[in-house]
Protein backbone atom coordinates (compact mmCIF):
# COMPACT_ATOMS: atom_id res chain seq x y z
CA UNK A 1 0.00 0.00 0.00
CA UNK A 2 1.31 3.48 -0.79
CA UNK A 3 1.57 6.14 1.88
CA UNK A 4 -1.35 7.95 0.26
CA UNK A 5 -3.53 4.86 0.43
CA UNK A 6 -2.75 4.35 4.08
CA UNK A 7 -3.41 8.00 4.89
CA UNK A 8 -6.64 7.83 2.90
CA UNK A 9 -7.85 4.73 4.72
CA UNK A 10 -7.11 6.22 8.14
CA UNK A 11 -8.83 9.45 7.13
CA UNK A 12 -11.89 7.58 5.88
CA UNK A 13 -12.16 5.68 9.13
CA UNK A 14 -11.52 8.67 11.36
CA UNK A 15 -13.69 11.25 9.61
CA UNK A 16 -16.38 8.93 8.22
CA UNK A 17 -15.93 10.30 4.68
CA UNK A 18 -15.97 8.40 1.38
CA UNK A 19 -12.64 7.23 0.02
CA UNK A 20 -13.09 9.15 -3.24
CA UNK A 21 -13.51 12.40 -1.32
CA UNK A 22 -9.97 12.08 -0.01
CA UNK A 23 -7.63 13.58 -2.60
CA UNK A 24 -4.04 14.76 -2.29
CA UNK A 25 -5.15 18.40 -2.29
CA UNK A 26 -8.03 17.95 0.18
CA UNK A 27 -7.71 19.97 3.36
CA UNK A 28 -8.66 18.04 6.48
CA UNK A 29 -10.63 20.85 8.05
CA UNK A 30 -12.34 22.66 5.17
CA UNK A 31 -12.79 19.84 2.66
CA UNK A 32 -13.13 16.83 4.91
CA UNK A 33 -14.93 18.42 7.87
CA UNK A 34 -12.39 17.62 10.56
CA UNK A 35 -12.40 19.56 13.83
CA UNK A 36 -9.36 20.17 16.03
CA UNK A 37 -9.97 16.98 17.99
CA UNK A 38 -10.19 14.97 14.75
CA UNK A 39 -6.79 16.34 13.76
CA UNK A 40 -5.31 15.15 17.05
CA UNK A 41 -6.84 11.72 16.54
CA UNK A 42 -5.61 11.59 12.93
CA UNK A 43 -2.07 12.46 13.98
CA UNK A 44 -2.19 9.77 16.68
CA UNK A 45 -3.49 7.23 14.15
CA UNK A 46 -0.72 8.18 11.69
CA UNK A 47 1.86 7.82 14.44
CA UNK A 48 0.56 4.38 15.26
CA UNK A 49 0.28 3.15 11.66
CA UNK A 50 3.67 4.46 10.55
CA UNK A 51 5.38 3.93 13.87
CA UNK A 52 6.74 7.47 13.99
CA UNK A 53 6.49 10.36 16.39
CA UNK A 54 5.18 13.62 15.01
CA UNK A 55 6.11 16.62 17.20
CA UNK A 56 3.38 19.18 17.85
CA UNK A 57 5.11 21.98 15.95
CA UNK A 58 5.19 19.82 12.83
CA UNK A 59 1.70 18.41 13.35
CA UNK A 60 0.34 21.96 13.45
CA UNK A 61 1.50 22.53 9.87
CA UNK A 62 -0.44 19.61 8.42
CA UNK A 63 -3.38 21.07 6.50
CA UNK A 64 -3.82 18.86 3.47
CA UNK A 65 -3.62 15.15 2.77
CA UNK A 66 -0.47 15.90 0.75
CA UNK A 67 1.13 17.56 3.81
CA UNK A 68 0.58 14.35 5.76
CA UNK A 69 1.76 12.06 2.96
CA UNK A 70 4.93 14.13 2.38
CA UNK A 71 5.74 14.20 6.08
CA UNK A 72 5.20 10.48 6.53
CA UNK A 73 7.23 9.66 3.40
CA UNK A 74 10.07 11.71 4.79
CA UNK A 75 9.86 10.03 8.20
CA UNK A 76 9.89 6.49 6.77
Amino acid at each position, binding site marked *: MTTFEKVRDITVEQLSVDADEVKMESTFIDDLGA*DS*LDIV*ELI*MAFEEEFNVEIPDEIAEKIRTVKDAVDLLDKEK
Partner: protein
Amino acid sequence: MQIEGKIAFVTGASRGIGRAIALTLAEAGADVVVNYAGNAAAAEEVAAEIRKMGRRALILQGDVSQTEAAASMLDAVVAEFGRCDILVNNAGITRDGLLMRMKEEDWDAVLDTNLKGVFNCTKAALKYMMKQRSGKIVNIASVVGIMGNAGQANYAAAKAGCIGFTKSAAKEVASRGITVNAVAPGLIATDMTSVLPEKVIEEMASGIPLKRAGQPVDVAKAVLFLVSDDAAYITGQTLNVDGGMVM
Protein backbone atom coordinates in the same frame (compact mmCIF):
# COMPACT_ATOMS: atom_id res chain seq x y z
CA MET B 1 -30.39 3.70 37.01
CA GLN B 2 -28.82 0.61 35.49
CA ILE B 3 -25.41 0.40 33.88
CA GLU B 4 -25.77 -3.22 32.82
CA GLY B 5 -22.72 -4.62 31.04
CA LYS B 6 -20.67 -1.42 31.23
CA ILE B 7 -16.97 -1.65 31.99
CA ALA B 8 -15.88 0.58 34.87
CA PHE B 9 -12.36 1.40 36.04
CA VAL B 10 -12.21 2.76 39.59
CA THR B 11 -8.90 4.02 40.98
CA GLY B 12 -8.17 3.64 44.67
CA ALA B 13 -10.97 1.11 44.92
CA SER B 14 -9.73 -1.10 47.75
CA ARG B 15 -10.99 1.04 50.62
CA GLY B 16 -13.25 3.89 51.65
CA ILE B 17 -15.18 5.82 49.04
CA GLY B 18 -13.52 3.98 46.14
CA ARG B 19 -14.60 0.63 47.53
CA ALA B 20 -18.19 1.85 47.88
CA ILE B 21 -18.12 3.16 44.31
CA ALA B 22 -16.79 -0.14 42.93
CA LEU B 23 -19.47 -2.14 44.77
CA THR B 24 -22.28 0.27 43.88
CA LEU B 25 -21.38 0.20 40.19
CA ALA B 26 -21.19 -3.61 40.25
CA GLU B 27 -24.55 -3.78 41.97
CA ALA B 28 -25.98 -1.66 39.15
CA GLY B 29 -24.67 -4.15 36.60
CA ALA B 30 -21.16 -3.03 35.66
CA ASP B 31 -18.04 -5.15 35.43
CA VAL B 32 -15.47 -3.41 37.56
CA VAL B 33 -11.72 -3.01 37.45
CA VAL B 34 -10.41 -2.47 40.96
CA ASN B 35 -7.22 -0.42 41.13
CA TYR B 36 -5.20 -0.20 44.31
CA ALA B 37 -1.78 1.09 45.27
CA GLY B 38 -0.82 -0.76 48.45
CA ASN B 39 -3.47 -2.91 50.06
CA ALA B 40 -3.74 -6.10 47.98
CA ALA B 41 -5.84 -7.99 50.52
CA ALA B 42 -8.46 -5.25 50.62
CA ALA B 43 -8.59 -5.15 46.82
CA GLU B 44 -9.06 -8.93 46.70
CA GLU B 45 -11.95 -8.59 49.11
CA VAL B 46 -13.65 -5.97 46.94
CA ALA B 47 -13.16 -8.11 43.83
CA ALA B 48 -14.61 -11.14 45.63
CA GLU B 49 -17.73 -9.16 46.57
CA ILE B 50 -18.14 -8.01 42.98
CA ARG B 51 -17.88 -11.60 41.70
CA LYS B 52 -20.43 -12.68 44.30
CA MET B 53 -22.86 -10.30 42.60
CA GLY B 54 -22.28 -12.17 39.34
CA ARG B 55 -20.21 -9.41 37.79
CA ARG B 56 -16.69 -9.69 36.45
CA ALA B 57 -13.85 -8.09 38.42
CA LEU B 58 -10.22 -7.43 37.56
CA ILE B 59 -7.63 -6.22 40.03
CA LEU B 60 -4.87 -3.89 38.85
CA GLN B 61 -2.13 -2.73 41.16
CA GLY B 62 -0.64 0.59 40.13
CA ASP B 63 0.33 4.08 41.19
CA VAL B 64 -1.83 6.55 39.24
CA SER B 65 0.78 9.28 39.68
CA GLN B 66 3.08 7.32 37.36
CA THR B 67 2.17 8.16 33.77
CA GLU B 68 3.33 4.84 32.32
CA ALA B 69 1.58 2.83 35.01
CA ALA B 70 -1.70 4.65 34.35
CA ALA B 71 -1.42 4.07 30.60
CA SER B 72 -0.63 0.39 30.97
CA MET B 73 -3.53 -0.09 33.40
CA LEU B 74 -5.99 1.34 30.88
CA ASP B 75 -4.43 -0.85 28.18
CA ALA B 76 -4.96 -3.83 30.49
CA VAL B 77 -8.62 -2.90 31.05
CA VAL B 78 -9.26 -2.82 27.31
CA ALA B 79 -7.21 -5.99 26.72
CA GLU B 80 -9.37 -7.82 29.25
CA PHE B 81 -12.83 -6.38 28.54
CA GLY B 82 -12.53 -4.87 25.05
CA ARG B 83 -13.53 -1.36 26.13
CA CYS B 84 -13.70 1.14 28.96
CA ASP B 85 -17.04 2.87 29.47
CA ILE B 86 -16.58 4.43 32.88
CA LEU B 87 -13.57 5.94 34.62
CA VAL B 88 -13.80 7.04 38.24
CA ASN B 89 -10.72 8.94 39.39
CA ASN B 90 -10.96 8.35 43.09
CA ALA B 91 -7.42 7.53 44.26
CA GLY B 92 -6.28 10.14 46.73
CA ILE B 93 -4.01 10.72 49.68
CA THR B 94 -3.58 13.35 52.39
CA ARG B 95 -0.42 14.82 53.91
CA ASP B 96 -1.99 17.42 56.18
CA GLY B 97 -0.07 20.18 57.88
CA LEU B 98 -0.07 23.92 58.24
CA LEU B 99 1.37 25.68 55.24
CA MET B 100 4.24 27.25 57.15
CA ARG B 101 5.43 23.79 58.13
CA MET B 102 4.42 21.87 55.02
CA LYS B 103 7.30 20.07 53.39
CA GLU B 104 7.86 20.19 49.68
CA GLU B 105 7.54 16.41 49.50
CA ASP B 106 4.12 16.56 51.16
CA TRP B 107 3.00 19.08 48.58
CA ASP B 108 4.38 17.03 45.71
CA ALA B 109 3.01 13.70 46.91
CA VAL B 110 -0.55 15.03 47.21
CA LEU B 111 -0.45 16.91 43.91
CA ASP B 112 1.07 13.91 42.13
CA THR B 113 -1.55 11.41 43.25
CA ASN B 114 -4.63 13.61 43.55
CA LEU B 115 -4.19 15.80 40.50
CA LYS B 116 -1.57 14.37 38.16
CA GLY B 117 -3.14 10.95 38.71
CA VAL B 118 -6.43 12.33 37.37
CA PHE B 119 -4.64 13.70 34.31
CA ASN B 120 -2.78 10.44 33.72
CA CYS B 121 -5.80 8.16 33.93
CA THR B 122 -8.14 10.48 32.06
CA LYS B 123 -5.70 10.88 29.19
CA ALA B 124 -5.15 7.13 29.00
CA ALA B 125 -8.89 6.40 29.09
CA LEU B 126 -9.74 9.06 26.51
CA LYS B 127 -7.56 7.26 23.98
CA TYR B 128 -10.20 4.53 24.01
CA MET B 129 -13.31 6.57 24.79
CA MET B 130 -12.65 8.90 21.84
CA LYS B 131 -12.66 5.91 19.50
CA GLN B 132 -15.77 4.50 21.16
CA ARG B 133 -17.50 7.87 20.83
CA SER B 134 -18.81 7.39 24.36
CA GLY B 135 -17.62 7.42 27.93
CA LYS B 136 -18.35 8.68 31.42
CA ILE B 137 -15.66 10.11 33.63
CA VAL B 138 -16.21 11.13 37.24
CA ASN B 139 -13.48 12.75 39.31
CA ILE B 140 -13.72 12.63 43.06
CA ALA B 141 -12.92 16.15 44.24
CA SER B 142 -13.72 17.50 47.70
CA VAL B 143 -15.61 20.39 49.27
CA VAL B 144 -12.18 21.42 50.53
CA GLY B 145 -11.32 22.25 46.90
CA ILE B 146 -14.18 24.74 46.95
CA MET B 147 -13.97 26.27 50.40
CA GLY B 148 -10.37 25.60 51.48
CA ASN B 149 -9.33 24.10 54.79
CA ALA B 150 -6.62 25.10 57.25
CA GLY B 151 -3.98 22.38 57.26
CA GLN B 152 -4.85 21.10 53.80
CA ALA B 153 -3.32 23.62 51.38
CA ASN B 154 -1.91 20.79 49.25
CA TYR B 155 -5.10 18.73 49.28
CA ALA B 156 -7.32 21.76 48.63
CA ALA B 157 -5.11 22.90 45.74
CA ALA B 158 -5.20 19.44 44.17
CA LYS B 159 -8.97 19.16 44.55
CA ALA B 160 -9.62 22.67 43.23
CA GLY B 161 -7.33 21.76 40.33
CA CYS B 162 -9.35 18.63 39.81
CA ILE B 163 -12.53 20.70 39.43
CA GLY B 164 -10.91 23.00 36.86
CA PHE B 165 -9.55 19.97 35.04
CA THR B 166 -13.03 18.46 34.98
CA LYS B 167 -14.52 21.53 33.31
CA SER B 168 -11.77 21.78 30.69
CA ALA B 169 -11.90 18.09 29.85
CA ALA B 170 -15.70 18.24 29.63
CA LYS B 171 -15.46 20.99 27.03
CA GLU B 172 -12.79 19.20 25.02
CA VAL B 173 -14.51 15.85 24.66
CA ALA B 174 -18.22 16.71 24.72
CA SER B 175 -18.43 16.42 20.93
CA ARG B 176 -17.39 12.77 21.25
CA GLY B 177 -20.24 11.78 23.52
CA ILE B 178 -18.06 11.74 26.62
CA THR B 179 -19.13 13.45 29.82
CA VAL B 180 -16.76 14.52 32.58
CA ASN B 181 -18.09 15.49 36.00
CA ALA B 182 -16.83 15.80 39.54
CA VAL B 183 -18.30 14.75 42.86
CA ALA B 184 -17.21 16.76 45.88
CA PRO B 185 -17.67 14.83 49.12
CA GLY B 186 -17.84 16.67 52.40
CA LEU B 187 -17.17 14.93 55.71
CA ILE B 188 -17.42 11.20 54.95
CA ALA B 189 -16.72 8.44 57.47
CA THR B 190 -13.67 6.63 56.03
CA ASP B 191 -10.16 5.63 57.07
CA MET B 192 -8.99 9.00 55.78
CA THR B 193 -11.20 10.93 58.21
CA SER B 194 -10.97 8.40 61.07
CA VAL B 195 -7.52 9.78 61.92
CA LEU B 196 -9.16 13.05 62.97
CA PRO B 197 -9.84 13.46 66.71
CA GLU B 198 -13.46 12.77 67.66
CA LYS B 199 -13.82 16.34 68.91
CA VAL B 200 -12.84 17.72 65.52
CA ILE B 201 -15.37 15.45 63.78
CA GLU B 202 -18.09 16.54 66.20
CA GLU B 203 -17.28 20.17 65.60
CA MET B 204 -17.31 19.69 61.86
CA ALA B 205 -20.60 17.79 61.98
CA SER B 206 -22.26 20.54 64.02
CA GLY B 207 -21.56 22.96 61.17
CA ILE B 208 -23.24 20.69 58.61
CA PRO B 209 -26.95 21.39 58.04
CA LEU B 210 -27.69 17.64 58.14
CA LYS B 211 -25.68 17.45 61.41
CA ARG B 212 -23.76 14.28 60.64
CA ALA B 213 -20.96 12.78 58.57
CA GLY B 214 -21.93 11.04 55.35
CA GLN B 215 -21.20 7.45 54.41
CA PRO B 216 -19.10 6.28 51.45
CA VAL B 217 -22.22 4.90 49.79
CA ASP B 218 -23.74 8.40 49.74
CA VAL B 219 -20.91 9.45 47.46
CA ALA B 220 -21.11 6.23 45.44
CA LYS B 221 -24.80 6.81 44.65
CA ALA B 222 -23.99 10.24 43.22
CA VAL B 223 -21.26 8.69 41.08
CA LEU B 224 -23.68 6.02 39.87
CA PHE B 225 -26.12 8.72 38.79
CA LEU B 226 -23.45 10.64 36.88
CA VAL B 227 -22.21 7.54 35.00
CA SER B 228 -25.73 6.39 34.13
CA ASP B 229 -27.62 7.51 31.03
CA ASP B 230 -29.99 9.41 33.31
CA ALA B 231 -27.21 12.02 33.53
CA ALA B 232 -26.54 12.06 29.78
CA TYR B 233 -27.13 15.83 29.58
CA ILE B 234 -24.89 16.70 32.55
CA THR B 235 -21.23 17.51 31.97
CA GLY B 236 -18.56 19.72 33.52
CA GLN B 237 -20.44 19.86 36.82
CA THR B 238 -19.36 19.40 40.39
CA LEU B 239 -21.97 17.68 42.53
CA ASN B 240 -21.49 18.25 46.26
CA VAL B 241 -22.32 15.32 48.52
CA ASP B 242 -21.81 17.04 51.82
CA GLY B 243 -25.01 17.27 53.86
CA GLY B 244 -25.29 20.91 52.86
CA MET B 245 -21.84 21.96 54.13
CA VAL B 246 -21.23 24.12 51.07
CA MET B 247 -24.00 25.93 49.23
